[in-house]
């Protein structure tokens, strides 16, 4: 229950933030942290709780992003209607990818590589077809207004990111406390033993990748609404997959708040190093990388592992 209370406090604190803070930088920072939390949690559900390491979560992100843009631009759907469709399509992509790879017993590095391959295939497809704008990408028309899910101020995006991140946190909390979560953990720890105890490992993993895909797609949809532009590299490129797994790994895999902590630290470090060394290009990235190495060296269980160790 403590986790649930913490989520409530987080929602309350972030929800009230715009009343006390008007700085676009701060609100933008919090928005991007919540967005990174969503991506990290999406990866964490499959990789952290389920033990299925994916190197290609961009496949779901891109599906959500393109679905959001295509449904609005090609089919004239309102953004509010397109959002659940994009999330659902991300889930469907997860189900299909999971069904294909888990059916053939792909695990560990093989699963990681197949996800990477899927992301690359989708990137090439998006680069080829006209309805995704091919290499030119898609630019969402600028129509500011809550009815179009485009906001003139950062506050609107902050609340949207908060809502999506909260859903992901609540699902992670439910995983920690539900029977399904126990099955997933059992599959992660020893799939053969779990199967011997009657757990349908295939189905359990399939549900995890479906939810993971849906949440990642929500991240893609959010990206399109906020930045109004998507192209194959932005949607299906490796940086998105890395961002998702990095937040979860740095923060603590298989924990409810790990991706949030990871997102705070990663974005915080990114901002800090970029702001302090703006006149020396690249120096910020060197320090950023060095600090990441330090975190991984001294906190192999992630930041959340520090708190667990003190209990």
């Amino acid at each position, binding site marked *: 229950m403590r986790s649930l209370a913490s989520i409530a406090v987080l929602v309350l604190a972030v929800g009230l933030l715009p009343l006390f803070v008007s*700085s*676009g*930088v701060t609100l*933008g*920072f919090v928005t*991007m942290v919540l967005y990174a939390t969503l991506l990290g949690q999406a990866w964490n559900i499959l990789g952290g709780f389920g033990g299925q390491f994916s190197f290609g979560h961009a496949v779901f992100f891109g599906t959500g992003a393109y679905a959001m843009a295509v449904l609005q631009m090609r089919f004239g759907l309102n953004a509010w209607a397109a959002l659940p469709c994009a999330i659902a399509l991300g889930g469907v992509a997860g189900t299909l990818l999971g069904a294909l790879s888990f059916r053939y017993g792909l695990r560990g590095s093989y699963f990681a590589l197949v996800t990477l391959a899927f992301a690359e295939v989708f990137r090439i497809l998006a*680069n080829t077809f006209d309805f995704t704008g*091919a*290499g*030119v*990408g898609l*630019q969402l*028309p*600028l129509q500011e207004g809550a009815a179009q899910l485009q906001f*003139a*101020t*950062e506050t609107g995006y902050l609340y949207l990111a908060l809502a999506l991140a909260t859903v992901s946190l609540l699902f992670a909390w439910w995983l920690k406390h539900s029977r399904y979560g126990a099955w997933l953990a059992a599959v992660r720890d020893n799939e053969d033993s779990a199967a011997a105890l009657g757990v349908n490992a295939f189905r359990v993993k399939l549900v995890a990748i479906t939810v993971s895909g849906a949440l990642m797609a929500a991240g893609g949809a959010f*990206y399109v609404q*906020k*930045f*109004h*532009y998507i*192209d*194959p*590299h*932005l949607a299906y490129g490796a*940086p998105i997959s890395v961002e998702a797994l990095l937040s979860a790994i740095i923060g603590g895999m298989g924990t409810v708040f790990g991706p949030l902590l990871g997102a705070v630290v990663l974005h915080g470090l990114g*901002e800090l190093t*970029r*702001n*302090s*060394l*703006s*006149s020396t*290009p*690249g*120096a*910020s*990235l060197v*320090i950023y990388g*060095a*600090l990441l190495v*330090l975190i991984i060296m*001294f906190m192999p269980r992630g930041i959340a592992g520090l708190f667990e160790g003190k209990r």
Partner: protein
Amino acid sequence: MTQRRQFLMNTAALAATAALPLGARAQGAPAIKVGVLHPVTGALAYSGNLSRLGAQIALDEINAAGGIKSMGGVKLAALLGDAQSKPEVGVAEVEKMNEQGASAIVGSYASAICLATTQAAAKYNIPHVVDVGVADQIVTRGLKNTFRFGPGYKITTEAAINNLHIMNTVARKPAKTVMIIHEESLFGTGTANLLASQLPGMGYEVKEIVKHANPTRDFNNIVLKMKSINPDIVIPANYYNEYALLLRTMKQQNVTPKAVFSVLGGAASSFKFVKEFADAANGVIDVNHWYNPKDKRAQALRKKVEAMPGQFYTYEVFLNYQCMYLLADAIERAKSSKREDIINALASSTWDKHFMPYGPTKFVNGQNTGAAPLTLQVLKGDIKVILPNTFAETEPVFPWKV
């Protein structure tokens, strides 16, 4: 354990030292803050750094010449931003510049980043001078704060097609077939689409369109295909590395079309390419951002940049240099550092003290309507303007004779 602690202490000390210059920079006389926003790290770092260089040279010159005279010599101060080659980081930088009190922003090189940063700047009514960003969507969204000094994509491609046709007609139409090789993103695909749709109408047969990924490190198969198709004109639309590699491979495989003709070619209008791969570059024609070669100020800047170790005089440098002067002129006339005043001054700008072949500036919906590219050809180890005749330094060599 002691070693670990020592290591952590040393790292913390290093980080603290690195953060010092920011504090030091913050102390200074009141100046008009100008955001200089480019992708100086990441995939676009080379172009981003050249862009920053151009803006900084101009800023230093403006300050050395007495700053903004109509405001009693107030200096311009650069707020340096790094978009890290990502639109979302560009937006975060705009937010930061807004809070630091930027009166205007110059940047941010790539179209995808410009789309995001101009929009973010529009939220705070920050005037945003677009330095390069050729995508036409940048100036068609009705953003009042956005001003593009250089030509957009459509103008450039249309000029390219017209000039190609003129050269071919004057030479009694030796070229009839075309092969387009383009990179897969917005720039390459967009160029290829426009060319493929317009060239057939002018009597050219587009024999093949080949798309390649970024990066591509082997063009042997593409050039083999080129050999079998034997097009009269090869049109590359890709970034520097791929462009250079493609031409080198063509040289190695002895493929010599009647012309290599590019639009905003990654390497064709680069002195770096001409210097490093003189053989491969010779004869290449490109339609690109270029200065008026007859203007002494452009040549003076070239000398200045080339005197700097490891620097080349590229379009990134001189476009940013000019954009900073364009902004300074607007501030000078506005006599104000207020964003709204600068936007109004830019919108009514008739600035003609530049060395680009544009004439006085006139912005319609944020686009400088006089902006146009020049057609260039690499000849005898130098880049020469061949069209239009007003700016031409020499006659085009077309078809190219090996």
